[in-house]
């Protein structure tokens, strides 16, 4: 075997080994001893677990739960509505399909893709914080904070979809005399329409979770109630509100699954009648959300632009760029070296988090596969397979419905502030997502080679290592890297509640109105996000 041949054969193995090494390295950033846990940490853990099994379901909690769930939903809907508008406009411009020559196409791609990249690289909670700092507490702060990063993500995906449209139908339209706008409306949009809706529905589920955590900067909703109950140490109430959040997420998830399934079925069968119920429902939701925000919360858009707010925003942003400071932190070498240390810590936290999540998902994924539970994949099924399947799947739903920030707030009661609680909180949220994605990869596998292995007498474990793992490993690695990117963005958020890294310092700087420090930390954070994007993109290409 030649050296190149060895790499080609084992490139996935080599990459896996590198990832494991990086994970182990990140573990060294923590001093492993009893000092990690609060003195009352274990009893608190028991109390939290007890609350899980005896949630407070009294009438006033239920009333508050329904009300906060509605606020959370309404903000998410309104935010997504604006995000879609933003994504449609900027995404179309970023794809360059409206330009007529090469130079303007490249220019338009670079500029608008840059805008989309910038808006999505900053986490929605930070946008919310910046808005609140600039214009004060208003539902619009939450809605815009949601709309901007979500619009950035949606816009980028829309642009990619537009660029992937095949040439022929577009050329045919052009020869028929269609201008740019007509090719867009008659060609591009109808071709990618179904995929756009699918992806938007998927993002909507994420928006619910994001909207819930908006509350942490003082904007109502489920997260706000969770936070209040945690401060009162009423864990039974905490879980009651967490259950409300889970139900809301599961509801949106099943709606979005329904819509996506209809769309794929319609593609297959070529029928055009289904889906009107969902359209009407979506329309009603958007209308109700905006009416509620306008009337129920009495939010005035004009008020946002009042003289007072504009002055405050001016002060805030001029503070950020250092106009009010003689010694801006981002021009100071010592501040930079401190911030870079925090950046490294944040990086380690993200690696630990994805490592923990990967281990947990790896240990649980096999029973979570439907085709293994019912025996269609391996040709044999045991009675306990379905019980295991149900248990693991419920665990996954639980894990991914609760936002990282909520996990972090609970964990910080058990562990002392530092990198470990942050990593655990991130891992708790991501292991459910990773497990679900992986299980779907195995479910989509071609079952024939696997059954043939079973026929050749391979045991379950041999089937896993010879049949399943080699086939799914590239997709597994892709999903690990993709989740790591997401975790990178979220590290800053778990830091807010004291889970270490850049986020903790960011919160301090916010509290002390240390504006130039905020700018410095944001710069470091964006460097991290860009590095993570680049590293994961290039490794993913190497594995393919």
């Amino acid at each position, binding site marked *: *075997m030649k050296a190149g*041949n060895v790499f*080609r*054969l084992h490139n996935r193995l080599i990459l896996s080994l590198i990832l494991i090494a990086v994970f182990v390295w990140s573990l060294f950033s923590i001093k492993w001893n009893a000092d990690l846990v609060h003195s009352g940490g274990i009893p608190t853990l028991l109390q939290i677990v007890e609350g899980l099994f005896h949630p407070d379901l009294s009438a006033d909690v239920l009333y508050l739960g329904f009300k906060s769930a509605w606020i959370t939903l309404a903000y998410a809907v309104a935010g997504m509505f604006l995000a879609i508008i933003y994504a449609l406009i900027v995404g179309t411009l970023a794809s360059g399909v409206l330009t007529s020559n090469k130079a303007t196409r490249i220019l338009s791609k670079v500029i608008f893709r840059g805008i989309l990249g910038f808006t999505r690289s900053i986490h929605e909670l930070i946008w919310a914080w910046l808005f609140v700092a600039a214009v004060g507490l208003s539902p619009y702060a939450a809605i815009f904070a949601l709309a901007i990063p979500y619009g950035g993500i949606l816009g980028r995906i829309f642009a990619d979809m537009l660029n992937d449209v095949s040439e022929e139908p577009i050329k045919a339209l052009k020869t028929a005399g269609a201008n740019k706008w007509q090719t867009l409306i008659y060609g591009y949009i109808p071709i990618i329409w179904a995929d756009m809706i699918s992806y938007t529905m998927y993002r909507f589920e994420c928006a619910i979770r994001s909207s819930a955590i908006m509350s942490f900067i003082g904007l109502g909703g489920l997260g706000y109630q969770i936070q209040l109950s945690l401060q009162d140490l009423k864990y039974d109430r905490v879980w009651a509100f967490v259950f409300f959040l889970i139900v809301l997420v599961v509801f949106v998830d099943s709606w979005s699954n329904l819509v996506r399934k209809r769309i794929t079925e319609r593609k297959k069968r070529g029928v055009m009648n289904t889906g009107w119920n969902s359209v009407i429902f979506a329309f009603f939701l958007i209308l109700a959300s905006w009416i509620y925000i306008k009337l129920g919360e009495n939010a005035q858009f004009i008020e946002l632009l009042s003289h007072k707010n504009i002055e405050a925003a001016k002060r805030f942003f001029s503070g950020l760029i250092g106009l009010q400071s003689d010694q801006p932190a981002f021009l100071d070498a010592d501040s930079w070296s401190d911030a870079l240390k925090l950046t490294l810590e944040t990086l380690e936290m993200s690696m630990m988090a994805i490592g923990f999540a990967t281990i947990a998902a790896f240990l649980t994924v096999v029973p979570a596969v439907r085709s293994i539970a019912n025996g269609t994949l391996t*040709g*044999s099924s045991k009675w306990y397979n379905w019980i295991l399947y149900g248990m693991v799947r419920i665990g996954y739903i639980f894990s991914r419905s609760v936002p990282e920030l909520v996990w972090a707030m609970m964990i910080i009661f058990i562990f002392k502030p530092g990198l470990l609680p942050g990593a655990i909180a991130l891992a708790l949220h991501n292991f459910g997502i990773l497990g679900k994605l992986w299980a779907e990869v195995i479910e989509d596998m*071609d079952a*024939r*080679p696997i*059954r*043939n*292995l*079973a*026929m*050749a*007498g*391979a*045991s379950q*474990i*041999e089937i896993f*290592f*010879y*049949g399943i793992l*080699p*086939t799914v*490993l*590239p997709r597994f690695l892709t999903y690990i890297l993709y989740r790591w990117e997401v975790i990178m963005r979220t590290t800053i958020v778990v830091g807010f509640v004291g889970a270490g890294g850049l986020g903790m310092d960011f919160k301090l700087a916010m509290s002390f109105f240390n504006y130039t420090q905020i700018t410095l930390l944001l710069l470091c954070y964006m460097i991290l996000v860009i590095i993570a994007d680049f590293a994961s993109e290039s490794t993913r290409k190497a594995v393919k």
Partner: protein
Amino acid sequence: MSSKIMVEANKLTKHFERKIALSSLSFSIQQGELVALIGPSGAGKTTLLNSIAGLVPLTSGELLIDGQPLSAYKKGKVFAKKMGVIRQQFDLIGPLAVIHNVLAGKLSDWGMIKSLISLLIPQEKTLAIQALERVGLNGKAYEITSNLSGGEQQRVAMARLMVQNPEIILADEPVASLDPARADDILAMLTNIVKEKKQTLITSLHSVDYAKKYFTRIISMRNGEVFFDLPTEEVTDDLLAELYHLKNGER
């Protein structure tokens, strides 16, 4: 030829919801026979092979493999010594190297530890290399399987069967997606190996010509029933014409 009966079917019946796939099939196959299953699409050839392989539970009827009922083979590892399956080239794990796909035929003999080590350092390498040479794939042991052509992949599947070395081989349309030259090649190789090792072969085929050329006995099926079951030399063109004759209203 010994007179050991390898497969004995007694009134095999299989219903899929409302459709009858097999209706009261009976036959017995002796060791060393080369049997071709022919008949129009939907006649039940694949269902029959799958039920002999134990992949599809029968609605009723009795099936004896080497004198024992199918249900007696509880352990997959024991059954794998009795029976092996080859189909179109969808039986291999694409991303694995060829040698691992061949050695997968040994998994029934190996323990877990040995199988896992083998993924890093191939065990019983000479056995695999010999099998690959026999099917004409010298020097391809370390290629990624999915990079091979359809015909080559089918040879890898045969090499795996040689390593597994079962007493009965079931082949479901083994040459369906190959061009005529390669199909001829594969069938010649398969029947030669089977004769050498005194194995028993049951193959479903679309092509009557191949059935006549390589097999000693032809069982034809139509609508889930045996239409004729004859030694190859007694199969006449009239019988074949009748087998594939379209009924009115059938397309």
